[in-house]
């Protein structure tokens, strides 16, 4: 198929960006979206233009590096996939595809389609861990039974890949689905209880400091999340936060 691409180009974080049109031809429907981008970039290299910078790495939907806003949707039109798993069979010959970076104050553009997500890092550093040192004497892994239900729910929350699609999708650029998922994982496990109060307070505080917006329960984040992280995690974080506020 032949396509027109409208792509956000921006030289660096200080430059003013703009949309630029490109044409690609003979795109196979079996290609992944990023393979289509590879074709474009090979074309640009060969004609002496600078290729489009975009983040990507594992190309199997787990590293969370890829981050394109395609036709107004985070990770494009398919559901339950990251951009690297999106395939060209979702598009038709002659389509015009708009490709933009994540847009959020807390995710400044570095270049073209690459954004800076270190705000997520700082939120995790504020409390996204259990304070346990490495030692050969940790108690036996089966010492504390954990109900299968709780373990499965914790796992569901823990599958967040930290891509930032929730933020990009949210009209308020809220990071509550991301933070809620991490808070939930630990809140659901006995190991996470000791530091539960400090954790949620510190992570929420950092989230606010980074300039992420608040949640107004639209639910778009859940729909666009490539890993299907549920809104329940936001509710759980709110409960944890309330509990922590009362306990102090």
């Amino acid at each position, binding site marked *: 198929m032949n396509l027109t691409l409208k792509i956000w180009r921006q030289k660096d974080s200080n430059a003013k960006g703009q949309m630029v049109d490109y044409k690609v031809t003979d795109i*196979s429907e*079996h*290609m992944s979206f*990023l*393979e289509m981008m*590879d074709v474009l970039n090979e074309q*640009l*290299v*060969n004609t*002496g233009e600078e*290729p489009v*910078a975009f983040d990507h*790495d*594992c*190309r*199997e*939907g*787990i*590293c969370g*590096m890829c981050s394109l806003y395609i036709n107004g949707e985070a990770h494009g039109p*398919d559901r339950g*996939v990251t951009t690297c*798993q999106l*395939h060209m*069979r979702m598009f038709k010959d002659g389509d015009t595809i708009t490709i933009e970076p994540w847009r959020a104050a807390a995710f400044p553009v*570095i270049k073209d389609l*690459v954004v800076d*997500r*270190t705000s*997520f*890092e700082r939120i*995790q*550093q*504020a409390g*996204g*861990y*259990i*304070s*346990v*040192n*490495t*030692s*050969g004497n*940790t*108690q*036996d*892994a*089966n010492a504390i*039974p954990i*109900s*299968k239900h709780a*373990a*499965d729910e*914790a*796992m569901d929350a*823990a*599958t967040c*890949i*930290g891509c930032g699609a929730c933020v990009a999708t949210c009209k308020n650029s809220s990071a509550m689905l991301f933070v809620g998922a991490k808070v939930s*994982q630990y809140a659901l496990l006995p190991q996470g209880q000791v530091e539960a109060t400090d954790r949620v307070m510190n992570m929420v505080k950092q989230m606010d400091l980074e300039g992420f917006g608040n949640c107004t329960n639209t639910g778009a984040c859940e729909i666009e999340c490539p890993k299907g992280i549920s809104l329940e995690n936001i509710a759980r974080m709110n409960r944890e936060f309330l509990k922590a506020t009362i306990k102090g």
Partner: protein
Amino acid sequence: MALDSKVPKGPIKDKWTDYKNKINLVNPANKRHIDVIVVGTGLAGGSAAATLAELGYNVKAFAYQDSPRRAHSIAAQGGINAAKNYQGDGDSTYRLFYDTVKGGDYRSREANVYRLAEVSANIIDQCVAQGVPFARDYGGLLDNRSFGGVLVSRTFYAKGQTGQQLLLGAYSAMNRQIARGKIEMFNRHEMLDVVVVDGKARGIIARNLITGEIERHSAHAVVIASGGYGNVYFLSTNAMGSNATAAWKIHKKGAYFANPCFTQIHPTCIPRSGDYQSKLTLMSESLRNDGRIWVPKNMEDVMAIREGRKKPTDLSEDERDYYLERRYPAFGNLVPRDVASRAAKERCDAGYGVNATGEAVYLDFASAIERYGKEQAKIHNIDNPTEAKIYELGKGIVEAKYGNLFQMYEKIVDEDPYKTPMMIYPATHYTMGGVWVDYNLMTTIPGCYCIGEANFSDHGANRLGASALMQGLADGYFVLPYTIGDYLADDIRTGKIPTNSKEFEEAEKAVTDRINFFINNNGTKSVDHFHKRLGKVMWDKVGMARNEQGLKEAMAEIKQIREEFWKDVKVPGNANEMNPELEKAGRVADFLELGELFAKDALMREESCGGHFREESVEESGEQKGEAKRNDKDFAFVAAWEYKGEPADAVLHKEELEFKDIELKQRSYK
């Protein structure tokens, strides 16, 4: 230099304990005056960085991604082995040790493997304490699954995302130390050389991938945890950015490179679909717990399937060749990876491949769905269930176990694997070879350590499933933090390492010169052009089956591609900005050298063992006819290569392998 593995004396089961009792320690007050650089933040690097920081060292960690959490360990699916014997099925430290040595086809160092098995149980305890949500059974205890090449269930897992969960555990431990200021994290940075001062590794030169700035970083020791070199094949299950640059740079500065030809071709990957393909996707080995691998028995059916006249589900049981079950009745579909891959290649080479390229076999879940469905019907007291009901119940179980893998398959191939068998074919996945290290995990450069997939030590010629995660975390959490202390104990009075020495200056200049060369070369062909050509030579001549003539041709062809690369590569953009093409150019330049050494190593090793199959070395008669033939008399050694300029001139050093606790014998999975 003679290779000294520094394996402690004494009985194998006491070596590690005795060693730990006798090594030098660094007191806590002195640790805060000692800096350690860790390159790579996957399971090995991440766990090492966190643990070293907990101990009190000042750690500087480097990752080329925008977060440590994105290292490619994240993509490991199936699980992590540990000798917990929670299932009571006869597992033990010794048995894990034995399985790993045997699975590695007797080309690993016994003492290292025993230590690995010994600390394996601690890993699970540590990860659970960190909040890693492993799968559990209804009683709330940890669940296990079985992997290839073993007869027990010792694999712990978190759905099909075990690597992700373990890495997030290590990442959380790192975050705690980053917040404390004990780890200084350098995201979007790439190490481009090691700096050796007075014979010791004392720092690195790194490039800031956002600004292009070249930076000098000093430390008292340097730890390389940068993963494997599978991308030398261009197409592999590795991430796009996975590269051998850090490992190759230390090789060029004096670290020997061991057994590069020991590379794992994983049997269950999604077959390639076209020339545009950028990577291959793995379908976890755990699928072989329940999936059965087959091709049609009759050539007419093969042709009918390829032409779309028949569907795989049209074939009756006796029209199918479950070739693994046929050839290896004891292990069946759970033979080790090297054996399964070669068997798939054998069938496809004989013409039985089931897709248009002729390079695919089926992985079929129909009988598992039926078996689970019947079991569930019984559990739920459903008498005379209909076929549809059985399918529905069985599908539920398969979905719970492998749902994310099935979804991944469906998104890529656009077929429903619950209804029609998956198509799979082997692809490059993991590299057992790597930087040579001694028992302390130190390379032949004093003060330069290498851990995880980047080193060569524990998997011999073939890695068993779910052992990579185990080794990465063992090295990082439980081995390196001890062994490095023994070395750093001599450095408590050294003080900060200055970065204005001539060694740093020279290293920085070499890095800058090379970058400027790329930018100014103005060639006519893209980096990928050369990488793809290299990959094709590697796959065709240094792939699943190798022979003398092909390997000699490969060496000459790779050299040729390398020469063309340096003449004609085209790198757009500038040095002082984010420039992904420039990053790739540097990595491919290193692969173009590594590939040739790889072929040279394969040519030298005139035996078949593990992932290395020489067509000249097969069993010619008896029960094992057609199987790989190892040659213990002449090749029971680690091949450690010393850099001498051109890869073809590398000098071989042998570390003879001694097997005192395990009898050397032909692997049989029959």
